[in-house]
């Protein structure tokens, strides 16, 4: 594996998308693509796996629901059953209609927050983290594709030129 990486800068999302397809068709390894906004279809073009965050969210929601059932039962039925307004708390089933709002809120609370935390952890974004986009223009209007050099560097460079890149730079790999 070579330690060099080529960055190709594009100024149009459609050009970038085409370029990603071309580079992949030529069997080069795309390390990363930095874009200022979500380019639809880019993940598929790059061959990225679909994200499973929605599934985690579902599981977190189930957890929240389970947690709410547990604590409502503990608080209202087991630990200190009260007769409020002539509506005694004898069993969870009898009281459950009154618990629906809390069950729902706790489900949403867990599903939303834990999913967002998972997203931040997986994507490594949190306060005091330094940005990794190599060119500040990639949050403005430019699109940057990093391709690992594997074999002939000039072949790859000319391929990238043909895809409509406006700037091509060769860098040593940092990591």
């Amino acid at each position, binding site marked *: 594996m070579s330690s060099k990486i080529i960055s190709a800068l594009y100024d149009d999302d459609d050009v970038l998308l085409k370029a990603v397809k071309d580079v992949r068709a030529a069997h080069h390894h795309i390390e990363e693509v930095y874009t200022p906004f979500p380019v639809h279809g880019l993940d598929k073009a790059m061959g990225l796996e679909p994200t499973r965050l929605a599934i985690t969210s579902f599981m977190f929601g189930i957890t929240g629901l389970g947690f709410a059932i547990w604590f409502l039962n503990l608080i209202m039925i087991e630990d200190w059953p009260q007769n409020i307004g002539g509506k005694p708390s004898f069993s969870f089933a009898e009281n459950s209609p009154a618990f629906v709002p809390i069950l729902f809120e706790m489900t*949403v609370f867990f599903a939303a927050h834990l999913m967002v935390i998972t997203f931040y952890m997986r994507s490594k*974004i949190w306060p005091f983290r330094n940005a990794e986009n190599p060119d500040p223009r990639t949050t403005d209007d430019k699109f940057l594709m990093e391709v690992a050099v594997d074999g002939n560097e000039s072949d790859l460079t000319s391929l990238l030129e*043909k895809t409509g890149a406006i700037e091509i730079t060769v860098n040593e790999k940092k990591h």
Partner: protein
Amino acid sequence: MGHYEAPIREAIIVGDKTYHDVTVDVAAPIEGKANKNWWIAFTIALIAMLWGFGAIAYTIGTGIGVWGLNNKINWAWDITNFVWWIGIGHAGTLISAVLLLFRQKWRMGINRSAEAMTIFAVFQAGLFPLIHMGRIWNGFYTLPIPNQLGSLWVNFNSPLLWDVFAISTYLSVSLVFWWTGLLPDFAMIRDRATKPFQKKIYSLLSFGWSGKAKDWQRFEEVSLVLAGLATPLVLSVHTIVSFDFATSVIPGWHSTVYPPYFVAGAVFSGFAMVQTLLLIMRKVSNLEAYITRVHIENMNKVILVTGGIVTVAYLSEFFVAWYTGSSYEDFTYLSWGAATGPYWWAFWALIICNSVIPQLLWFKKIRTNYIWTFIIAIFINIGMWFERFDIIVINLSRGHLPSTWAQFSPTFVDIGIFLGTFGFFFVLFLLYARTFPVIAQAEVKSILKSSGDNYKRARDAGEPSPKVTPPVIVVEEGTEPIVEIDSDAKTSSLLESLGTFDINTQQPDNLKKVKGIGPVMEKTLNQIGIYSFNQVSKMTSKEYDLLDSITDSFPGRAQRDDWAGQANKLKS
């Protein structure tokens, strides 16, 4: 192309914007200096806020007795203001969540500010139940945590406690939804920042967002799932607020129509407040290109629908009050007794502001007019405050026994706290408008090609799309481009139609002036034998195709950018 949008849909980004223009326009209020009007508005808001804090301190120090509450009317302005603010706090999440699920692109111009409004409004709303406790330091009793009273727990059968859970969930979920959407935009500000302090702050706020493809994929999934979660959440919040009343036995409160009617009312008032704020903001922050007549009209349509729903609810409440024949029902807030009783003015304020005036929006002339929209929105804000005032005060003012009949008059403390929440709200909003990217610029860029006016115009006329970015001329070092021109036959046939150019006798033009021709492409063209604007201007689709087949570069690009047309202008 994938950017097609039906021509019948009006452009929602006007002014021929490029991606870079969006960046500049959104960053401008943050990078510029505040003008005099901002400082005046901020000072007034700050004074009102401090006045309100003083009134709150006085309330807590002395007791709830400083309010105008009496034995019978034990809820009044406090809960009116609470429900009013929480209702306003419904538009933001509705816009960003429900409209996302419905794939409404126009949400992108307004969702950021609407969500900011939501969060700031929920802050104000949350103040009222807290200070209404009187002994605010006992506020933690509302949480299911073991306390010094042994294991005396909270009562989960009570809608007031449901409120605590619903509102805290709503506030916190809205906040992370908002913040997650802000990350790419903070990153944009960070990467543009020139002052070190600014750079530091926005680096911190952006959580190191880099815009990697995988992160965007997750970002979009998270946004979608959060929207899916926030949609039932936003409906649940005002449903539960309505339970505060609907589960009681007070005539006028004990009503099964409350949950849907409260939700519709909340959306109604929330959109009215969004209109009020954004109509000013689009002017002050120069965002007319992103918050257009289409946005205003669409919001007015939502107002018309939700206003219709509340009007139907009013009519049914009024009808039921009459139809029961119950003398107690004749004093509920929507009854003949209320319309002619001591609170007739509050009754008619509700009817006129919420049901009569918004009907003007049926006229397209009016709902697409900024001034009219602003005036109507103000009336709705007032009307929705009166709705809550009527529900609470009119219903409580007539008990089952005439001896319990009472009137309410607010004290200066009631008024002071209400004004204070206005001040607090506008302090937050004004600070937000100066420091936050007030348009979700990353999202707006993603719809620029489908909904920008220049793109729509070009597509409708069958012309090549305008460039999304201004041309950059960069000369690369170290990487000498070599494009092999292998097909001599094609080259000669191309030059045949374009005319040949003698490099020894004629002066070559700077072809990079043509948008879409970079330094690499220029060299390629030169290799083929194309040097002058004159040659480029003769290109037609036949030559474009030939050129594409020779260079193997991005197909259709030359045609899309209309090189010939550009060169035609340049050669003169």
